[in-house]
């Protein structure tokens, strides 16, 4: 099959004009050129920009990851040594576990809450609907840095609001950034604060795309609110839900600013790497340490592969959901 063959027959079919034949022919061939090539021209800006800012850095990173690369000094080709080292690097695995731990703590409660809120906002009887829908999105508009700084203050050991409140129910001061579980919880709460509203809105949009008559029919058949939610809303929401999960996965795997600011800007993430995420480890190796840029590049590619794998998993789930 070919694009051009469908266009080509139109040329001889055109009736020969009485005069100025060459002129028309040139115009026709120009039109053909336009038809075949301009679509590429139209999409070219994207590919050009993607090439310069997306593809080239990626390939360059891959090339770097095959070297012992000092940012301001020598570089030697070492093949896959960086990747072998990566597999045996306990701090890499530690960062991986931290990333997934914080991801689970942030994504699961976040999506359940978003589902609940979306269902509330979807009620026909709710007053001031637009107000609530706008309000719930506000945390997402606030900059990450501001959120992280404010939450960092809330979770302070001595003078933080959270410890002060916990004091009323008799719980001792918690050193939030001093342990794994507490730091994960604190960071997850920042992520949840920012992204619950966003996901609520997407889920709400998905819910509103569900035909009303399904609910009406269910009501006539005597199904209550809860049953309607389980039997109609949830199954029909599945594609939207999976889209939301994919977005949360990509965001969660690249978590960086929140834990970094929670650690007062220390790239190690706590005194014992309690909450150093993969993105932070990549930054530590690739940028903070000038002499291990090649290894940092290998971490970057490992992160890329992990996100790729997770996306593939999501994709398989979508396929299964569709059938």
């Amino acid at each position: 099959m070919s694009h051009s063959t469908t266009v080509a027959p139109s040329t001889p079919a055109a009736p020969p004009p009485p005069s100025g034949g060459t002129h028309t022919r040139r115009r026709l061939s120009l039109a053909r050129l336009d038809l075949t090539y301009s679509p590429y021209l139209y999409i070219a800006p994207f590919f050009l920009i993607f090439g310069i800012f997306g593809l080239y850095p990626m390939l360059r990173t891959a090339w770097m990851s095959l070297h012992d690369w000092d940012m301001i000094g020598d570089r030697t080709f070492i093949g896959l040594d960086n990747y072998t080292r990566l597999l045996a690097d306990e701090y890499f695995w530690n960062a991986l576990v931290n990333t997934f731990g914080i991801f689970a703590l942030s994504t699961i409660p976040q999506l359940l809450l978003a589902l609940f809120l979306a269902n509330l906002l979807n009620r026909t009887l709710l007053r001031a609907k637009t107000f609530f829908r706008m309000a719930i999105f506000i945390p997402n508009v606030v900059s990450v840095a501001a959120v992280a700084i404010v939450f960092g203050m809330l979770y302070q050991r001595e003078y933080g609001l959270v410890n002060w409140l916990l004091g009323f129910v008799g719980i001792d001061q918690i050193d939030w950034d001093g342990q794994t579980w507490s730091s994960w919880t604190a960071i997850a709460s920042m992520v949840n604060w920012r992204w619950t509203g966003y996901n609520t809105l997407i889920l709400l949009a998905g819910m509103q795309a569900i035909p009303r008559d399904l609910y009406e029919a269910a009501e006539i058949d005597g199904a209550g609110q809860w049953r309607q939610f389980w039997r109609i809303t949830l199954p029909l929401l599945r594609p939207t839900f999976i889209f939301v999960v994919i977005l949360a996965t990509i965001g969660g795997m690249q978590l960086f600013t929140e834990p970094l600011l929670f650690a007062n800007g220390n790239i190690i993430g706590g005194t014992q790497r309690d909450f150093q995420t993969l993105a932070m480890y990549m930054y530590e190796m690739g940028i903070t340490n000038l002499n291990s840029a090649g290894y940092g590049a290998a971490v970057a590619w490992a992160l890329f592969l992990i996100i790729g794998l997770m996306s593939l998993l999501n994709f398989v789930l979508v396929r299964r959901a569709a059938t």
Partner: protein
Amino acid sequence: MSLTTRRSRLAASALAAITAVGGLAACGNDDEPAAGEKPSKLVVETFGEFGYDELVKQYEKDTGIKIEMRKTAQLGEYRPKLVRYLATGKGAGDVVALEEGILNEFKSNPRNWVDLAPLVDDHSEDYLPWKWELGKAPDGRLMGLPTDVGSLAVCYRKDLFEAAGLPTDRDEVSALWPDWDSFLKTGRTYQEGSGGKALIDSITAVADASLFQQGDDLFYDKENNIIADTSPAVKAAWDTAVSMVDISAKAATWSPEWSAGFKQGSFAVTFCPSWMLGIVVENSGEENQGKWDVAAVPGGGGNWGGSWLAVPEQSSYHEEAAKLAEFLTNATSQVEAFKAKGPLPTHLEALQDEAFLSYTNEYFSDAPTGKIFGESVSKIEPIHLGPKHQAVKENAFGLALRAFENGQASEDEAWQQFTKDAQIQGAF
């Protein structure tokens, strides 16, 4: 032709175009000027405030060379900039200020920097000896001319000392702690007198102060092998820090607890390099003016921070840039800079200058900070800092001590953590 092959050919040509762009970007600037050509302009690259503005104007007048001052406010933004200049081989100023940590790190690639020794007069006897030595790269080249020094003193709260029944006069306070043992005893007395309050902010601050007093090799030996686990100096600083855990407020420097602690009075003492005075003022606020004072640091001298001026190899005017750096670091210039913005001199003549010695600080109860810091700095032993001293100190030594201080690790566990991480952070 099928659509798929056409598509792949397009992709291939796009890829070629991209690589070409990348290749172009990778080529450096080769526009070397002819030898002996007089520069029309030199660029001085600094961070924070070095107090060079007036000096530069004078130099312009004397030599007819135009000088551009390029300042970066934060040290945190300055380092990545320098790295970019060195990695791409262009963009750096002709005279570049290098902070202690940055200088040590850059020393492992000394070829990026001009050897200043043949370009300037012999100054080896003019500066604090240890400061001069630190300006040399492992291959022997003179990488930087000394500018300022952090020096070290103790900032203490007079009102809290008084409430706890301790003396408040700065000479009496200095006399309380000639060494670290007596400092610990003072901490215990303060604790009893104040109903259990902590004297110091954190044990990592003690470690930083104590480390610089040891002299000789710290985390690296002279061949730059990591000796974190066997170095006597490191162990001594570690032991001193660990012994202070009972009198510490466990508020690590720069943490929110630390910043808030100044107003809350959760500690009565913090270790003050000269540049820290401004931060103490900022954190304590105007309402605490006159409550702080400055005393000598236990164990005598100490240093924290300070910089050098260097000339990058990529500069087009090595000789003229070196002359400018020499001018900016001479005794007169250092006193002028101190008067303008406060960086402490390292030139021996400047340290004896009357303007410097008579300087007092109003916020800190009119303490003679020039004299106190000057004395502290003259007691420093020559010291060898390896290439990644800063990273080992902050991300291995400091974090392990904090883990111990917070009760996350026993002393042994923390020491294990430190020696292991020192190998990782210190590799170069």
